[in-house]
């Protein structure tokens, strides 16, 4: 009962933060709303029993990625955003609700087909008999044993992206 109540509180916080992110006119307020979204997502992971993922979500996304966002906004001193005059009225009124309904239906169908809707909220889910789902040992085993090749390929991809960014950002001599 309590996990369900907490889930709805954090889910509401998450969606509220996301809507606020779109509504706010100043980039720094939008960035701060995104931090709220990241934080409540971390709490939802915690409710699912994935405490390692929750902590990493806070450290990496709320702590590092968003600090860089805020840093860039501060450095560029980005001002209040400007709106275009002739926005489509239909898109403004029906766009977001339509998108939400469409996405929810899609997620519901997919999760039903995959049988994912039976994962309980709250408490760890047992996987493969011995590994508790979401604990550091299980994640380590998955990343560095079962999915080692995809993991290494992803690392290489990120390395290439970093090197590309450095090359692009470097001043012409």
């Amino acid at each position: 009962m309590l996990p369900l109540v907490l889930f709805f509180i954090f889910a509401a916080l998450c969606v509220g933060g996301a809507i606020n992110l779109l509504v706010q006119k100043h980039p720094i307020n939008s960035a701060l709303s995104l931090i709220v979204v990241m934080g409540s997502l971390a709490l939802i992971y915690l409710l699912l029993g994935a405490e390692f993922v929750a902590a990493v979500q806070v450290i990496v996304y709320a702590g590092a990625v968003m600090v860089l966002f805020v840093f860039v906004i501060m450095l560029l001193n980005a001002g209040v955003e400007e709106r275009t005059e002739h926005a489509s009225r239909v898109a403004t009124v029906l766009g977001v609700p339509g998108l939400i309904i469409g996405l929810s239906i899609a997620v519901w169908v997919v999760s039903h087909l995959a049988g994912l809707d039976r994962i309980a909220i709250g408490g760890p889910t047992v996987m493969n008999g011995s590994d508790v789902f979401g604990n550091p040992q299980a994640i380590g085993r998955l990343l560095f044993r079962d999915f080692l090749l995809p993991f290494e390929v992803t690392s290489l991809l990120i390395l290439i992206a970093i090197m590309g960014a450095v090359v692009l950002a470097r001043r012409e001599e």
Partner: protein
Amino acid sequence: MGIGTYILVSLVKIAIALLVLLTAVAYTTLLERKVVAHIQNRWGPSRVGPFGIWQPLADGLKFIFKEDLTPPYVNKPLYLLAPVVALTTALTSIAVIPIGPWIKLGSINTPLQIADVNIGLLIILGVTSVGVYGVALAGWSSNSKYSMLGGLRASAQMVSYEIALGLSLIGVLIFAGSFSLRDIVDSQAGTWLGFIPKWNLFKGQFVAFFIYIMAAYAETNRIPFDLPEAETELVAGYHTEYSSMKFAMFFMAEYANMVTVACLASILFLGGWSGPVFGPPIVQSLLPVFWFALRVFAFMFIYIWVRGTLPRFRYDQLMAFGWKFLLPLAIANIVVTSLVVALK
């Protein structure tokens, strides 16, 4: 233990921990002024009570009675939010830090720690990484060039050194096999040859220890890495526009972070509360806390000692030191440690 007792015991522990932490913060300022004064051949605070012992109380009263000025050009919501974020995150991390073993009071058996969680170390890293926003937002919302430069420097510095700090802890985690701070302390129990304690420092983690200490000095914005508040160029950095209690909140946050860093260093590298235990039962249950406090005090003293001795880095030196020296060294430490553990 019923849920009612559990909540009661937790509330009592929270109250005691906050009281002890805030007192420690207040008296660290006195210690700092005294020690730095003696390093510079001065007396330091000596008027309020013997040896200036009531100086922190006088300072606190002064902060409360100062005029609380909010400059008209600031971004008000964020200007008010920034010191709250800084102080809240600084005080939160103490919740997962264990200061001693389990104790038994009548029928209540409880650990000397507010919350014994299995990802304690990660929680501290997460909370401190969120603490950067306090400094960054203070710098931005003050709408002044000195605050802005201080805030920018602080966020860049803290994000850079967080990486070296996090990587320096991996070696300890490899030895302990757990993120729980209590497990990490337990993994350092015992001695070699009867007198050399099995601390992580002596297990070959001394490189990691020095990386941790240096990165932690940078994280807490202390000399020699106090570029964000370099008074010769930036007035007071990110808290230039703050006065009265709001300034005091940044001040308390900085010192609370120092205490957390010192606690963490004792737990991760120096065996936590291990030490000789003897005497009657009441002394036996309190001695570990004393040994722990002694280590924390030593770290706080070194902090102040370094402040009284070293000059400040230049900004490019600071960044080069973090990225080109500490980070590769931390990665090398991980590789060597895991090789040693794997080949053993």
